[in-house]
């Protein structure tokens, strides 16, 4: 039977608990619903959406430099 070592206990102690992590993100102003939506996407879809957002950012940056 596996036993928990002192380092396991320490690692567990340092690890943010799931509900705490979600609450901490929400308190920080992060849109947790959007994170949840992203998890439902494939990796390719996440990267495609990021590329669309990046293109928009670059267009706006270019426009503001004029």
């Amino acid at each position: 039977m596996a036993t928990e070592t002192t380092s396991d206990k320490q690692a567990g102690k340092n690890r943010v608990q799931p509900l705490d992590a979600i609450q901490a993100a929400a308190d920080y102003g992060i849109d947790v619903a959007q994170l949840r939506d992203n998890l439902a996407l494939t990796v390719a879809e996440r990267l495609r959406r990021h590329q669309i957002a990046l293109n928009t950012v670059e267009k706006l940056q270019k426009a503001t430099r004029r």
Partner: protein
Amino acid sequence: MSDLLSLLRRVSEAGIEFVIVGGFAGIVHGCTYVTQDIDICCAFAPDTLLALQEALADLHPVHRMTPGRKPLELTAESAGRFANLYLDTDLGRLDCLSTVEGLGDFAQVKAASEPVEVEGMRLNVLTLDALIQSRQALNRPRDREALKQLQALRALKEGGAKESP
């Protein structure tokens, strides 16, 4: 206009072994921010860097951190002198790192990675746990939001949030 996936494809199709790390790895895992560069970790052997240079040759790669943005012109001799390469290309910015804070060198980074399939490419990306570990080790103010997002993503996954295969 940047095209980060095409940039990755260039490097991947050149047969260069690498791991996606940093902000773009966060995007792979589901982060919501926008990043304008790709960070990869690879072996900094001269052969690898020369292959990278060849793969990017027609994309006008330059050292983006140097005054005057010097063109990437590695030789077998000079390739051995770099620990990191911060490049700008026609397809976007590519930062190549020999080590990752909190994880170690390429072998250690690779051991902390997992494969993902994207548009016919098999890419290695840092696991969510390893990404969190590296962000915690960096401990920079600019990493705080990314760290909070990554920890929340891990919590959502552990809590059974619906995840795409």
